[in-house]
């Protein structure tokens, strides 16, 4: 079992969070922790999720990054996350 934390930025669109959680479940990753905040401009949702699985990190990262509305995915240390860091991160799309 490996355990890791992902930081995901997704466009605020219909079903955005459910779509990401759906991919996570379908690819057999267990969700251990989740927080989600709308960015100040209201256009994006910043999600931090800790998951556990028998599969490599990249299996999930690659599936999430190809979702249409996702602009950024990275594996982070759980303590890396903070409001300023998120606000500073620019959108790739």
């Amino acid at each position, binding site marked *: 079992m490996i355990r890791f934390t992902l930081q995901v930025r997704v466009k605020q669109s*219909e*079903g955005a969070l*459910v*779509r990401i959680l*759906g991919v996570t479940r*379908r690819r057999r990753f267990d969700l251990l922790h989740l927080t989600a905040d709308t960015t100040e401009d209201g256009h994006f949702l910043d999600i931090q999720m800790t998951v556990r699985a028998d599969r490599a990190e*990249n*299996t999930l990262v*690659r*599936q999430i*990054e*190809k*979702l*249409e*509305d996702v602009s950024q995915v990275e594996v982070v240390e759980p303590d890396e996350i903070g409001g300023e860091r998120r606000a500073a991160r620019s959108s790739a799309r």
Partner: protein
Amino acid sequence: MKGAEFLVKALEHEGVELIFGYPGGAIMPVYDALLDSKIRHILVRHEQAAALAADGYARATGKVGVCMATSGPGATNLVTGIANAYMDSVPMVAITGQVSTALMGTDAFQEVDIFGITMPVVKHSFLAKTAAELPRIVHEAFRIARSGRPGPVLIDLPKDIANTVAEYGFHEDATSEEIAEASKESITRAIAMMRESRNPVVYAGGGIGMANALEEFRTFIDKTRIPVVATLKGLGALPTTHELALGMMGMHGTKTANHAVQTCDLLICVGARFDDRATGRLNAFAPNAKVIHLDVDRAEVSKLRRADVPVIGNLRHALKALACKLPNIEPWRRECTTSKETHAWDYDAPGTEVYAPGFLKSLSDRAGDDSIVACDVGQHQMWVAQHFHFNRPSQHLSSGGLGTMGYGLPAAIGAQLAFPNACVINVSGDGSIMMNLQELATLRRYDLPVKIVLFDNRALGMVRQWQELFHDKRYSEVDLSDNPDFCRVAESMGIPAFRVEDRADVSGAIDRLLAEPGPVLAHVVIHQEANVWPIVGPGRSNSEMLHQHEVAREVAR
């Protein structure tokens, strides 16, 4: 203008010629708008067939297939077809009516959360919230459906939005994204690995046809002279008759193809995804091979088998860049082509009953390279893959990933509408045909000259075969001996039909089938215990193929 008219106008702008659909309450504004459009609507008799016909149209043409249904059951009936397109990466736009915005979330009549239901099986989906955004949504949906790795996109349209009057905001976004080229570094590493190899094999998948890279692929093979094995969807990437085409790999692959993969030192996977039906037991698949994986979808590379060299990006560019001469592989190439000759199919089966592989081989020889074959799912599907000759992947419409029984007839309808003068053949079985039998009425309505070959073994043949071989002949719910009289069923829907029982009548039957100017059904009776050979048992390695003569010997002991 109303929202529904925006939608139809945007579809026209996308060049849509055909929509496969079925009307109902929530989608009525769109059907009203369609009356004033030049888009042709094809009324099927079940929404599932609308999605599968759109899929067949898309595979045969390379264009985006469009299907439409009303809310609730209309929408849920599309789901199998959407999932089918998703699993095989077929470009599709599915439009569903939805109850009015104010009623959404109230369990209204014919309300279902189709956006949520389809989420696992779409590339993307939209819920229209204003009429003004509809043109943008439509163009985005088409762009997403056909870009990169293609797939289905859903547009859910609430009835009040379809009825809203607004100013048409023209939105042109019809261009698809250019696919980035693979890195120079990956190409250099791949070429070095190819030059080192003595026993390389190319594992050709459906991505080649979808990337429109047939020409580049064939040049790559003619230059490198690497033997090619194909997945179900990769058949035709190299013509079946090409000397380097070793046939299909996997569960029902040829002995030559599976043996080549199991003994190769380098596997070059082109637009394929290491599906379990192709690989057999994964940890025993191509055990001595390094892997070069060419794909547009980064998520497929190293998903199941680690790629030593990932080549991610535009397939046409990568194949061009990798085409080099490999003088060291001549002995291996000869070994493979000799094996292909030694293990060529034997059509000289005992008995006087119709031998399905032989029937299909003759049909293929006579129908020619311009024909299109749409099959259903089961034994006949594998016989088509093994014995029909394909000159291009778009000639072979087969439900690979999802394995959808009932796919063939609607897919043939989609292909025939795209190519009215082509010889379109639906090869089906007595199990599969019943899954979308109602579409015979659609054939008649539009007078589509689809030729149906219905192999009837009075059983769910593939399941029966597995129960025979892997469940100690404990037959469970596979008997279809009470099938209807298929000829009378077809005739009742206005389709001429005839029955074939003896092998001696096959040649005449094929003549009659191909000479018929309109739709026709040949009801071909085959032995109930006819099996698909060879077969790799579930959970077994592709090195452990079972052949008919070996199993017969085993039984005789």
